[in-house]
């Protein structure tokens, strides 16, 4: 299937809801993803965690279905449904047997369209969220990542945490969730993806049936005369045109550039009760829309992913035996998310590990990657595509992502060519653009306290 491309079916309903369907009859199951172009980035300034809490409460009762009814219905079918949120997107994700597709789709649509946000659920889920934040506070890995983001991004919104802090989450009220929901859950911000054992035209018709009569809140309030019934197209011709051109959606969110650090910095989160330290080392990265994205992606693979963590893994884990894990990651989003190198090391090795990362980056900057490294990474990235597009859930997530970033329905077909065309020079240029030890931001969380000599090179 994947060797010839996915060729999913796609349509945009009159109200602006995008529908994508792909039949895959390997197992008698279907994965459904309802993506919403609203995430933690839209949290009010003093209410970090609003999107995260909204996601936790969203499926806990609709206007016509109490939480217990939703739970009984899903559990009785062995279906799973969850709501996840990221910085710019939220998604209702469901998996069910194909016989249950219609019923689970109906339920998921009800959750997306008519959540009730019951007070009792807000209270319970707020406490759950706070518990999970407290658990993170006892875990060096998320503490290092959070401290890294704060130090790297400063006043930029990417410094904020998706799940918020105990203080901000405590202050979130039901009304905040309703406001967030009304702003974000607009039909033209919604993409519904169904992948699995259901024919494409059947899936699209079923989705159109439960989403087609949804009109936007803004329109409903502003133009009462036109919203007596929700059965008319409500998006203006311009809005629809803009959507087709890809001008609404992600581009409606303008993420400012981050201010690039001019010097190296280190922040520490002492957690003396822990056995091991986690470190995050990196830079502000690139936007997903960067024309050289494939080159950055290949560079990232060669530096910190290929085999057991690319060049970094080979030197720091394999040759020096210093860490159980070391890898790099490139978070290219609507804004320039972080390019991060992560490692888990014993306290005794923190300084050595940082010095080793410095050395490896300096070598990449000075001599570049080898042609073999880049060729291997390209082969991997191209060759891994069929494997990555094997399961329903993985295909659905790939298609939603391609839609979110306007990559095109044929992105799975074009991607191998985009990767193959990356040259050694382009990968080295990407490295030169991002990596600079003298301006690295470094965060260490764990049983380690900064000493005087550790940082300056």
């Amino acid at each position, binding site marked *: *299937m994947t*060797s010839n491309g996915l060729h999913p079916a796609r349509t945009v309903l009159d109200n602006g809801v995008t529908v994508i369907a792909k039949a*895959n009859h*390997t*197992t*008698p*199951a279907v994965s459904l993803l309802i993506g919403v172009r609203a995430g933690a980035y839209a949290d009010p300034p003093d209410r970090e965690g609003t999107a995260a809490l909204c996601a936790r409460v969203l499926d806990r009762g609709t206007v016509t279905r109490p*939480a217990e009814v939703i*739970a*009984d219905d*899903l*559990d*009785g*079918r*062995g*279906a*799973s449904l*969850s709501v996840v949120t990221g910085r710019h997107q939220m998604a209702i994700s469901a*998996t*069910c*047997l194909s016989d249950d597709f219609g019923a689970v789709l109906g339920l998921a649509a009800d959750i997306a369209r008519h959540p009730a946000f019951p007070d009792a659920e807000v*209270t*319970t889920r707020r*406490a*759950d969220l*706070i*518990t999970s934040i407290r*658990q993170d506070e*006892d875990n*060096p*890995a998320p503490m290092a990542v959070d401290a890294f983001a704060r130090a790297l991004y400063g006043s930029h919104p990417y410094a904020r945490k998706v799940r918020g802090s105990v203080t901000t989450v405590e202050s979130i009220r039901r009304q905040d969730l309703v406001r967030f929901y009304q702003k974000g859950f607009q039909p033209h911000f919604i993409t519904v993806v169904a992948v699995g054992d259901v024919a494409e035209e059947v899936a699209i018709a079923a989705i159109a049936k439960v989403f087609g009569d949804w009109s936007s809140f803004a329109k409903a309030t502003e133009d009462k005369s036109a919203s007596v019934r929700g059965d008319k197209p409500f998006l203006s011709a311009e809005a629809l045109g803009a959507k087709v051109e890809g001008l609404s959606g992600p581009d409606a969110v303008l993420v400012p550039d981050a201010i690039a650090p001019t010097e190296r910095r280190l922040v520490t989160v*002492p957690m*003396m*009760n822990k*056995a*091991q330290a986690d470190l995050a080392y990196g830079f502000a990265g690139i936007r997903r829309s960067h024309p050289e994205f494939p080159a950055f992606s290949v560079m990232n693979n060669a530096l910190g992913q*290929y085999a*057991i963590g690319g060049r970094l893994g080979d030197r720091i*884990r*394999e040759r*020096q*035996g*210093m*860490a*159980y*894990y070391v890898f790099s990651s490139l978070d290219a989003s609507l804004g320039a998310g972080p390019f991060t190198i992560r490692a*888990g*090391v*014993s306290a005794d090795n923190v300084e050595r590990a940082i010095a080793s990362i410095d050395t490896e980056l300096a070598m990449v900057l000075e001599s570049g990657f080898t042609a073999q490294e880049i060729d291997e990474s390209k*082969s*991997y990235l191209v*060759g*891994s595509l*069929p*494997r990555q*597009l*094997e*399961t*329903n*859930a993985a295909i659905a997530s790939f298609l939603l992502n391609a839609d979110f970033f306007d990559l095109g329905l044929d992105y799975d077909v074009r991607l191998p060519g985009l990767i193959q065309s990356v040259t050694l020079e382009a990968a080295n240029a990407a490295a030169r653009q991002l990596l600079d030890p003298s301006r690295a931001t470094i965060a260490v969380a764990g049983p380690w306290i900064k000493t005087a000599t550790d940082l300056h090179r």
Partner: protein
Amino acid sequence: MAIRETVLDNGLKVLVQEVHTAPLASVWCWYRVGSKDETPGVTGVSHWVEHMNFKGTRNIPRDQVKGIIEKFGGSWNGYTWIDQTTYLETASKDALDRMLFIEAERMDACLYDPADCESERTVIISELQGGENDPEQLLDTEVTAAAFKVHPYHHPTIGWLSDLQTMTREDLYGHYRRFYVPANATIVVVGDVETDDVVKRVSAQFGGIASGARKAAVRQVEPEQQAERRVVLRKEGTAAYWKAVFHAPAFADEAFFPLLVADAVLNGAAGLNIWSGGGVSRPQRSARLYRTLVDGGLASSVSGGLMPTEHPYLYSLSVSVAEGGSLAAVEDAVLKEVARLRHDGITPAELTKVNAQLRARFVYDGDSVTDIAHQLGYFETIGSWRNYHDLRARLEAVTAEAVHAAAVKYLTPANRTIGWFEPQAGIGDPGSGIRTGSSK
């Protein structure tokens, strides 16, 4: 679903299943050796050996061993658990020979360079310490050790720190030579392949390796637990965790599926794939413990665990206590639900519901060629791969009465070990530690 089972002259078992939906093949090589086969003083040796077997062979230089499959876009990995050690590659079907070559080399030609053994010591200890950073994992290790006095399921797969500090290259290499032999191994190939062709290729790659011996069975039997045991961990932390484990039937025991159904009633069905976990969250919001604990505001999460194992292992209940909640209140609520199950059993409606859940989970458990191959090999290491195809029949034979009987037999106070992780505020309290004791 046709599986071909072939046994080569040297004893290597080969399982092949053709799945032609994507141009992929998944190769898993399984060894019947896990942490339960280890003796005191060398705990963790199976897992460390697994690490060493990624470090180069006579014919694959160490710097190529991890990349050889990635050139084909493949993924590779391995894991060690209580009953088994396994290695996998999933890649384009064109890479089948490469994958088999790697596994044949891994079985017979790993180097165990002394310098590599030494540098891996720090990596393993770092992995152990990373795990100890997680209070839930720490609690799990302590509770499991308290539950088993005699059977080697007592010690964690990663081993005890002191053993990791003193283990020698000879310990590692001896373990490798003893257990990594055709007679003790199964190779599983699932994907867009042709069965006869696979068998021919496997014979060519593995046929010349000397048979060796299948490992001897572990003889220790855990005596029946006589009284509840308790472990209270008081360490610096921010959240409290509660755990209970009950000695549970082995997978082959007829009580296994009734107890699996009981767990699904308490916590929602989790399925039986320890590799991917079925890839989706368990349907649990209508489950008894979720409603009592999470909807009741006492806990932020609850889960149950019953794993298919060769010998009787544990059924576990794990709870994250909600902010502001107490361990005592959680314990009281869980034990009341467990007692209710023991006294009243389950309803016919619950049996119907969790049957539907488990049937769906068994579908999700085999979602990819990698998962299908995992399931076949996993069940082979604890009995027979044929058990993977019997799951539904065994599930459908479960009656409400059998579930009740399993609860009565296994979920008793004397059969359980309860663990608390009580977080302590503030830093620098070297006196915090582990208290182990026994009560009724």
